């Protein structure tokens, strides 16, 4: 498939455990975004990778959250010492670098990972 993929689709964990969520962007897309979708907060931006530039981490809610993007492709979002308020759907999106490029202003979303912290 040519779309954004995320794994796992569902993750249930116990409070205090660490979790890793994976995102495979569309091949060739240099921009990658993580968002969180929860009932109380709606859709929130978490972090943004653009090529080789330093990531924009301004949306990360706490230092328990971190993300990496290896080789300019796959990204992993890590949540340490999970809390019940971390329960949400975590969405990944990718796009071309420039808004003026074909499809460049569209972010293509993956199906999300539903995280449940017990």
């Amino acid at each position, binding site marked *: 498939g040519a779309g954004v993929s995320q794994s796992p689709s569902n993750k249930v964990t116990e409070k205090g455990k660490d979790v890793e969520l994976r995102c495979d962007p569309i091949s060739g897309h240099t921009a990658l975004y993580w*968002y969180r979708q929860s009932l109380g907060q*709606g859709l929130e931006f978490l972090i*943004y990778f653009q090529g080789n530039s330093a990531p924009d981490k301004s*949306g990360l809610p706490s230092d328990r959250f971190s993300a990496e993007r290896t080789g300019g492709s796959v990204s992993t979002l890590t949540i340490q010492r999970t809390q019940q308020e971390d329960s949400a759907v975590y969405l990944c*999106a990718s796009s071309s670098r*420039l808004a*003026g490029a074909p499809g460049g202003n569209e972010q293509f*979303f993956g*199906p999300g990972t539903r995280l449940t912290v017990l």
Partner: protein
Amino acid sequence: AQTVTQSQPEMSVQEAETVTLSCTYDTSENNYYLFWYKQPPSRQMILVIRQEAYKQQNATENRFSVNFQKAAKSFSLKISDSQLGDTAMYFCAFMKLNYGGSQGNLIFGKGTKLSVKP
């Protein structure tokens, strides 16, 4: 900071009728994009329509059109000839352009749950 407001948490429409979803936003930016995304129960976010702020002409995509009022910071979505498959959450989103034309992250409204009734 930019904010996006969707004042209609839920709406319903009869099949084949027309419905308009409201969205207002607040920004001091001059260069930006506006989007409507659709999220059906499958959780997959799908782009419905986009509007560049510098374009005065309202965007249209088949049965979907927008009424973009830049001065009023309003961006409503009109769905004509509503179909059962249009049932979904609809999110209005704002994206500013960074220096050099690269795009920023999306800022979403809280969403409007649209139900199309047979």
